[in-house]
């Protein structure tokens, strides 16, 4: 009997610990965000630090974004044509490709790729700096590590994400055009004219850009936070990188649902 109650108490204690840890981390990440925003003035003044991070998270992600955008567009074109031609409206395939890319797939897949390509690299870099006590050394030299290391990486991610998402959507539409118009033989004019008639710049394109901004901010914040917060050991860094990718992916998908339900509820 005693062992039974002991088990229940142990289980409750475990739940309580998880909850407290979760709340503590949530509070910590919020305080971290404020500290980061307060220290951001310096990363504007020393813009070359941010430009360097734009290179590492933006330019180096170009290839994967272009290639995956192209392939997603090719697949969308094929599948869209296969389904739409059953209803005799294969001409509308351009609309389907463009709207699904601009509204959902562009921002979401670009953000997922960005989290695994650039987010994990940011976490690894900051985590290793912590493990090798570089962050502490900076503190000793009266250099604020949040202003010097964290803020530029955050802003580099926030700024490059919308550009990458727009590029992803454009490449996807190009891929869809390539497979349906050039290979299958859908009418070129109908492809573009129906797309133009259906896509609204302020509604579809801008909402996609807003989404990618939000995803960029969330992924960058998670990446720098996990790096800054990691256990300063080899194992801790590897766990932090895993957490960055997993948490970012979940946050992107959940936020995408929330944003979509606010943005696109069928006018």
């Amino acid at each position: 009997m005693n062992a039974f109650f002991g088990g229940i108490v142990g289980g409750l204690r475990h739940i309580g610990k998880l909850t407290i840890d979760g709340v503590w981390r949530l509070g910590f990440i919020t305080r971290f965000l404020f500290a980061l925003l307060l220290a951001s003035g310096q990363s504007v003044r020393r813009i070359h630090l941010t430009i360097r991070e734009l290179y590492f998270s933006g330019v180096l992600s170009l290839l994967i974004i272009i290639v995956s955008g192209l392939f997603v567009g090719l697949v969308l074109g094929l599948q869209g044509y296969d389904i739409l031609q059953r209803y005799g409206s294969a001409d509308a395939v351009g609309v389907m490709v463009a709207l699904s890319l601009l509204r959902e797939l562009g921002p979401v897949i670009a953000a997922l790729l960005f989290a695994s390509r650039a987010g994990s690299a940011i976490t690894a870099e900051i985590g290793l700096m912590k493990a090798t006590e570089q962050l502490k050394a900076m503190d000793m030299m009266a250099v604020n590590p949040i202003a010097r290391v964290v803020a530029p990486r955050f802003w580099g991610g926030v700024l490059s994400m919308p550009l990458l998402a727009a590029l992803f959507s454009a490449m996807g539409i190009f891929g869809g055009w390539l497979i349906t118009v050039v290979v299958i033989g859908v009418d070129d004019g109908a492809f573009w004219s129906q797309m133009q008639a259906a896509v609204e710049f302020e509604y579809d394109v801008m909402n996609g850009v807003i989404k990618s901004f939000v995803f960029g901010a969330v992924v960058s914040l998670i990446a720098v936070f996990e790096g800054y917060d990691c256990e300063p050991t080899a194992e801790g860094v590897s766990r932090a990188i895993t957490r960055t990718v997993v948490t970012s992916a979940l946050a992107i998908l959940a936020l995408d649902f929330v944003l979509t339900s606010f943005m696109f509820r069928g006018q």
Partner: protein
Amino acid sequence: MMSRTALDLWVGILVAIGFAALVFLAMKVGNFSGLDGRETYRIEAPFDNIGGLKVRAPVKSAGVLVGRVQSIRFDTETYRAVVQMEIDKRFEFPADTSASILTSGLLGEQYIGLDAGADIEPLKDGDRVLITQSAVVLEKLIGQFLFDKAAEPAAQ
């Protein structure tokens, strides 16, 4: 470590490509222009009802693409829609050609079909097609069908 200028160049390339993609998305088509720069002439046709016809919709004759819709405007004097079309210079049509608005498939997009007449004179730039047939409006068609059905037993 990369030099400062190379870094700036790459980031500049990223920003340029990103904004180019945005502009492409904004314009959606970029360099698309009518019949790929072929020489065209313009004709117009008045319709009572254009249905869901859109600018840049295809103009076909016997199912072959011969041109594109260039603009659609509303004529306040006759209260009809006037559709301006660009027709490829290679295709000449008789002056008494008729134009009708058709639909490709049941739910497909609408286009203009040209049926050649028998006149010796060809249509020239700026000419007007006089014989036109409006788009079929499904509601009207169903309404008429129901009306006819209702009238049938009374006639017997």
